[in-house]
């Protein structure tokens, strides 16, 4: 499990942890029912405050990615892979809608936009 914290980023540290653990779950690197490090251990390893790691776990719990069992620890919750993928697709759709909107305001055609998308996709 890899988590990298940037101290110079504008994004709060708890948010960076949430984002990275979410990605690990979606990519399947963290399997269902796998135990996460304790909030204290994670804080110690990353040299950050316990309050920060606690907040990150609370956020993940609220969004249903993990479950915490008092006295036992935090675990990756039973996820429906399709649901996770759907969540991802929804994010992509939102971003594409934004791009379409931006294209319309400056009069870029559907063809031109698809061409741009194609180039970007192949470059990446």
């Amino acid at each position: 499990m890899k988590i990298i914290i940037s101290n110079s980023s504008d994004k709060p540290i708890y948010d960076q942890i949430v984002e990275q653990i979410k990605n690990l779950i979606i990519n399947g690197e963290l399997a269902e029912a796998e135990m996460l490090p304790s909030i204290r251990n994670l804080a110690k390893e990353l040299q950050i405050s316990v309050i920060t790691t606690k907040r990150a776990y609370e956020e993940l719990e609220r969004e249903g990615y993990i479950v915490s069992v008092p006295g036992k620890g935090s675990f990756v919750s039973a996820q429906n892979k399709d649901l996770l993928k759907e969540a991802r697709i929804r994010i992509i759709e939102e971003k594409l809608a934004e791009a379409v909107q931006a294209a319309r305001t400056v009069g870029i055609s559907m063809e031109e936009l698809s061409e741009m998308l194609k180039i970007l996709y192949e470059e990446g």
Partner: protein
Amino acid sequence: MEPILEIKGLRKSYGDFSIKGIDLVLEKGYIMGFIGPNGAGKSTTIKLIMNLLKKDGGEIKVFGKDNVKFEHEIKNRIGFVYDENYFYEELTISEMKWIIEPFYKTWDEKAYKKYIKKFELPEKKKIKELSKGMKMKLSLTIALSHNADLLIMDEPTSGLDPLVRSELLETLSEVIQDENKAVFFSTHITSDLDKIADYVTLIHNGEILFSESKDDILSNYGIVKGGKEILGKDASRDFVGVRQNRFGFEALTKDKNQIKRKYGDKILIEKPTLEEIMLYHTRREQNAV
């Protein structure tokens, strides 16, 4: 849950200095950094907690008990690290240990050996031959060798090199792996706290200016820069420690989101460090608008 350390309305004055009725709470499982400029009242507060000074008024409770009435019981459970050497210079480390050990009911030889090894302390050397960093590590070793639940340290990092400081900080985060323990330490090197502190308390002129979680402090405060024209009648309410120059001003805000909404593009907001927050607060009086 009962706080591990609780201070209410603490007062003490001597000469022209006074602690003006301070309040403070530290829960189990957390590290609190106690910051402030020299002479702000950090050491006095710590000495009052340790009952090395007599308070004029107020209440100090450690583990839920009065710190004077239950002094012995409480001190058995406190690990205390002081900024000056309080060992006998002529003794070796192991001789010093033999003297200190009987004072604690709960001396833990295994822990003592562990830290001696970890910090690579030469047990046969006389205390006066140790470097400043080693003396501090020895103090910390003693403080951690009697199963203390609360670690109180007065300027433990002052005068230490960055390497020793980071070893010390790492040890502190190890200590609170046990969530029944807590650490309270004073420092004026705020970069020590940027990382590991859970709570930060700022004292200035014997008063607590704030005592909040570090994450909240760092996400709400901001350094504001802008042209002087926006320093109107609200300035003293919106900004702390305004500093003007020929071309504009710089100040601290306690609520950067509100300031952003109010002034929009007319200002620039940057992420502050704890050091900057301390500086802007403590120079407020001299530079009031």
